């Protein structure tokens, strides 16, 4: 885990070579890079910029809208722990709807193999190990699926850079990513817009297994924490097939809290509330 100081020193040392680099602050590429190589570099760099956050907590509020405009609400709290050399550990605790209040989901994500997931059911005080292959399923009846909400591990996709194009006041790179495990994902591909300044994701288009444009996610209200880590404040997912949409609002971000490894164990899961 790098400190901010170490990061700043590195940045200063790199400063002279940052200037000629037209994009991304990446070292110059010796041979003409293929679109696949560029795509992978963007993904790797994007993930690397998030290194060292340690842990964070945040609140999520979802508003689910159907075609007729009827609304339904969800509220949950999220705790995430960075794990060196592996996927993050996360704990989600549901507050609303009230009938699932106290239900908690513990995920130990992995870079290569399948994630480990346990569900805590407060009415029975039961911890249940569940299958993590349900990536494409709806998350709490929303337009977000589990895979849409888990941070994309670089190793779980292959990439292809498409083009640069303006996005608002910024310039974005547009790349495609394809799931390595085709069975585990509900998508054949995703198209991702990331700005060249900070590699924040602003838009994702999801294409289903028949390559039909299924959903579009737009992300906004970014804020920077600890002078380094960008986090979205609002995510809007629209399903083009059903006309339903879900707005996910993030709030109360807290970084480098006293969260410990032990809070992400099965014993810790039983304490979640």
């Amino acid at each position, binding site marked *: 885990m790098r400190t901010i100081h170490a990061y700043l020193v590195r940045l200063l040392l790199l400063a002279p070579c940052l200037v000629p680099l037209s994009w991304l602050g990446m070292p110059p590429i010796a041979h003409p890079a293929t679109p696949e190589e560029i795509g992978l570099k963007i993904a790797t760099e994007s993930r690397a910029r998030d290194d060292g956050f340690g842990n964070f907590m945040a609140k999520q509020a979802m508003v689910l809208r*159907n075609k007729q405009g009827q609304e339904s*609400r969800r509220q949950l709290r999220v705790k995430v722990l960075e794990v060196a050399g592996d996927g993050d550990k996360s704990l989600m605790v549901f507050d609303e*709807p*009230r009938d*699932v209040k106290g239900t908690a989901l513990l995920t130990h994500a992995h870079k290569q193999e399948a994630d480990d997931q346990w569900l805590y059911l407060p009415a029975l005080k039961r911890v249940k190990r569940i*299958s993590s292959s349900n990536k494409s399923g709806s998350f709490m009846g929303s337009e977000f699926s589990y895979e849409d909400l888990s941070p994309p591990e670089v190793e779980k996709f292959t990439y292809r850079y498409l083009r640069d194009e303006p996005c608002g006041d910024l310039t974005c790179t547009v790349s495609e990513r394809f799931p390595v495990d085709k069975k585990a994902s509900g998508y054949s591909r995703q198209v991702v817009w990331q700005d060249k300044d900070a590699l924040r994701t602003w838009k994702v288009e999801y294409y289903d297994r028949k390559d039909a444009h299924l959903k579009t996610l737009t992300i906004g209200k970014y804020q920077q924490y600890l002078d380094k880590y960008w986090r979205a404040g609002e995510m809007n997912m629209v399903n083009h097939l059903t006309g339903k949409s879900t707005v996910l609002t993030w709030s109360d971000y807290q970084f480098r809290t006293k969260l410990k490894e032990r809070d992400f164990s099965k*014993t810790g899961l039983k304490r979640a509330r």
Partner: protein
Amino acid sequence: MSRRGARSLLALTATWLIASCVAVDVHAEIELAAWDLSGLVSLEGRAFPQTGIDASQRSYTTGFVVEPKLYLEEAEGSSFTLVPFFRYDSVDSVRTHWDLREAYALLYGELGEGEWEVRLGVDRVFWGVAESQHLVDIINQIDFLEHPNGEVKLGQPMVHLTWTGDWGVLEFFGLPYHRPRIYPGRGGRLRFAGLVDRERVEYESGAEEWHPDFAARYSRSFGPLDVGMSVFDGTSREATLVCVPPACGGSVFPYVFIPYYSQIRQFGLDAQLTLDSWLLKFEAIHRSGERNPLGREEGIRTALIQGRGFEGILGQYREEEYVAAVVGGEYTFYSVFSSTSDVGLLAEWNYDERGRRALPRRQPMTLDNDFFIGARLAFNDVDSTEITAAFLTDASRETRNLGFEFDRRLFDQWSLHVEANLILSIDPLDVQYVGRRDGFYEFHLEYNF
């Protein structure tokens, strides 16, 4: 309220007071960092299409449940949880009951590379992986008044220590007080032929309900495999029912049985292997020390004819030692037919070494050589609509049970639960044959706050 009821109330209150005193003492100088009041109010009804065996049993009942939950947390993360429970039943005054489901202080901290956790007070604990029965699960008494499936439990006073490390999780339980199982009263159904005495409860131990029981469990995850090993030494949670004249026998109706609790030892093993969409499950127990009347009918009859008392009749019961197991699995088809719905299929085989001498574990099934087949359809819609079906069949006898459940959120805070428990057939040789008319339908209209 009965004498025993008053005593158990006293014991629960004492435990609660001790737990809250500890909590207050520990928290004396620390400010409350968070608190939360939530809970459930439920309007419920149950209907039995067939009349009971006993004319005093009613064919329908209505009532309500109140179960609030108060949670207090101080800045360091220690907390106190309080969950009282009350049920009102319109036809059975025994089923109108209250309980302290939870009232415990929780403290935890670092211990070397790992952590320690203490839960002190009344709590509920769940062990195991199977769905058709909870074989290894033994810490709590079941709340038999709530549902014959045994999923609902009474609060258990305990000291629960947990030590977690890279090497796994080790837990110790000190259980100072025994909660007897309460059976439905005269107007109630699902009590089968007789009533169970609430005033007279017999224990093998001279310390009666104050016999200190102990339990321990070691559990660990190895990649896709979750394993738990447990041991319990103390008062059985299952009553042995003893028929002693004049309250029981002859032309008396209904019979009033005396419940007797043996000192038992149980070793348990539970494991689940999670591979993609497969969950493979296994639970097994070895239990010794429990008394069983089945297979000793001749001797019991003789003792009854000789006019012997409780001890003499109980002396005829066999003190048994047996193994029982559940093995099975669950497979889920996600997003079937390109919809958002998931379909889960479950199958489990229940085995009990005692065979025909096995006592019912999940009414009306003995689960000695029984297959369970289940299906779960989750629509994953906004209202979390879910339908489950469960079929239990005895492989060697004509006993079959079919259950359906439907769950759905109605509005943000309201939800609906409807279930059907159909007894398709019961073999006349089964002890639970007397319960053959107790299939029922039930609904809950729940308000969650």
